[in-house]
């Protein structure tokens, strides 16, 4: 960043003695760069960068992680107040139960799972969606008796705009091949450990046990996996280009929600 050409030094008008012979000393106005702006005086333009992080991502999870740089940190609080849903791909495996709900924990129990079918799993997912839908309406703190509550409910725009426990707005089974399965979960105010716990609870409901093998965030508000920079592209040019591309999207997102 420091290698990039900085802004040109400020110019000032000073009255300097004209180069010339002796005799009367005349003052000639000349445009001269201000010494205080000289790079050797000022030092490198960037010494520290303020980087802020968006919604937390676990050590064991992967996926889209939003960062704000410099002035972008102000947008981070606005994005937090938007309360938009995040989408995760959660992979699970039947047959085992561990103490921290992931496949690297200490084994608690092993169970059979050959009685599980995709239909049973989808039934459980429907119930989860139903109870979370109720929680969504309850934590949004809107009086259910008003006409506007009814209209928002019809459009599906009721959402908790303050603090709330984790709420799942939609779940879908993407793949099902015993013992592995994969779910797509849209949620609000969640932590990755909560998603792992949910996989464990799904296993319990199906009268077996399950551990979570993978948690990957594929969407955080408007940022999807396509916008995100992979490890190989963590350099200045890609970052600058990505910021430029996303600026418009972030602005529209914030305007629409707030």
């Amino acid at each position, binding site marked *: 960043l420091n290698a990039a050409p900085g802004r040109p030094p400020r110019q000032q008008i000073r009255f300097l003695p004209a180069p010339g012979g002796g005799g009367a000393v005349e003052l000639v106005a000349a445009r001269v760069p201000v010494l205080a702006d000289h790079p050797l005086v000022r030092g490198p333009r960037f010494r520290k960068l303020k980087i802020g992080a968006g919604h937390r991502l676990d050590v064991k999870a992967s996926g889209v992680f939003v960062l704000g740089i410099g002035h972008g940190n102000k947008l981070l609080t606005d994005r937090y107040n938007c309360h938009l849903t995040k989408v995760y791909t959660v992979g699970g495996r039947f*047959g085992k139960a561990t103490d921290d709900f992931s496949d690297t924990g200490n*084994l608690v*129990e*092993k*169970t*059979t799972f*050959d*009685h599980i079918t995709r239909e*049973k799993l989808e*039934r*459980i997912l*429907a*119930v989860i*969606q*139903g*109870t979370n*839908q*109720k929680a969504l*309406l309850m934590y949004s703190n809107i009086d*259910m*008796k*008003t*006409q506007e*509550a*009814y*209209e928002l*409910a*019809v*459009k*599906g725009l009721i959402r908790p705009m303050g603090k709330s426990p984790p709420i799942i707005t*939609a779940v*879908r089974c993407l793949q099902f091949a015993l013992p592995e399965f994969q779910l797509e979960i*849209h949620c609000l105010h969640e932590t990755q450990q909560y998603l792992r716990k949910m996989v464990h609870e799904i296993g319990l*409901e*199906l*009268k*077996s046990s399950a551990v979570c093998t993978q948690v990957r965030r594929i969407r955080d508000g408007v940022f999807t996996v396509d916008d995100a920079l992979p490890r190989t592209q963590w350099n200045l040019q890609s970052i600058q280009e990505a910021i430029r591309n996303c600026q418009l999207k972030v602005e529209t997102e914030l305007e629409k929600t707030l």
Partner: protein
Amino acid sequence: RGLGVAAGPPSTRQLREAEEGAPVFQYAGKAARRKDRVFVWGFSYSGALGVPSFVKPDAGWKKPRRIQPTPYRLETEEKISSAACGYGFTLLASNTRDITKVWGMGLNKDSQLGFQRTRRDQTKGYEYVLEPSPIPLPLEKPQQTRVLQVSCGRAHSLVLTDSEGVFTMGNNSYGQCGRKVVEDEIYSGSHLIHQLKEFDSRVVQVVCGQDHSLFRTKKGTVYACGWGADGQTGLGHYNITSVPTKLHGDIAGVNIVQVSSYGDCCLAVSDEGDVFGWGNSEYLQLASVTETTQVNVPRHLPFKIGKIKEAACGGTGNLVLTEEGNVFVWGYGILGKGPNLIETAVPEMIPPSLFGWSDFSPDIRVAHVRCGLSQFAALTNRGELFVWGKNLRGCLGTGRMEDQYFPWRVTVPGEVVDVACGIDHMVSMVSSF
């Protein structure tokens, strides 16, 4: 213990071996069946919920529970295939061939649950039945006949069997039991259960209104008996009818596939998707065809909302379900479209997004609709139950005491197969996961 081996955190290989050697538990085998359960909720002091400890606590620390605001599981001996809620009492029927096929609980002041012999005095009967008690039906072949359906009105009940006609019991002061009205008859503690067999073909559905009864036969004809002052018998007059009589009017010659009633208005659906109505119209239920407040002849209701699959008639509001799975409401009261819609004569559709339909799950459809006196219930094809309407004594089952102005999910641990709505309580048949 091997003294030469150092103790320490178990290595990966040891962990893996321990894991492989761990015992495998089996909680459900491949042949695990889904169990059928019954859930009840609402006002319990009449005994209609069938849980005696709500009314008379059996342990010292328990307090009487006046209202059960959320679904509570009711233990039954057999699988219940049909249930009906009346005004303070409930009937549960099973499809079995055993001798006991019907159980009743709740108010029994008019013997709507048959004669329930008291333990102390063999001649007297219970006036409040707190537990599901068997109702003795005078069947000719008790080990072969099956009970298909039950229905309850204000103070009378009907039991439909497959080969022995319809049994009626309870209050008969308006002839709603299908037998001649006896002056000054004492209904409490009565042993009389009347049997009705004279219809043009086998009866396939029985429906009780508040003080009248409707019978639908296999041929598609409808019979009615009972109170007619609001025209709810549909026979062309406003008098009492004590013998089931065939209805004419706009439904003569039409094959009716479903009849519904709960208060004083009645709806019938034909096989072609048309809906006919008769009875009370004070709340604009039939205002689309007539200005009068009582209609005593079935009239066709010309709604252009598509082919109608099912209809449900409440006290002041009506509900129909079309073939596409859309729900339409009209009438008076809390209709389900927010607090601003109080009454309408023309059916209004309830947006499917309120029943869980969204871009994410576009194949959710409403499968059945049911009505209580001022509540409505809808069952989706995913087995979810949505209720809305006036929350009289906690009958909606949402856990709150407030009225519900738009469809709200009831959390039941299982897939809801059927629901019966009453005045202040509801019964649902649920299949467990």
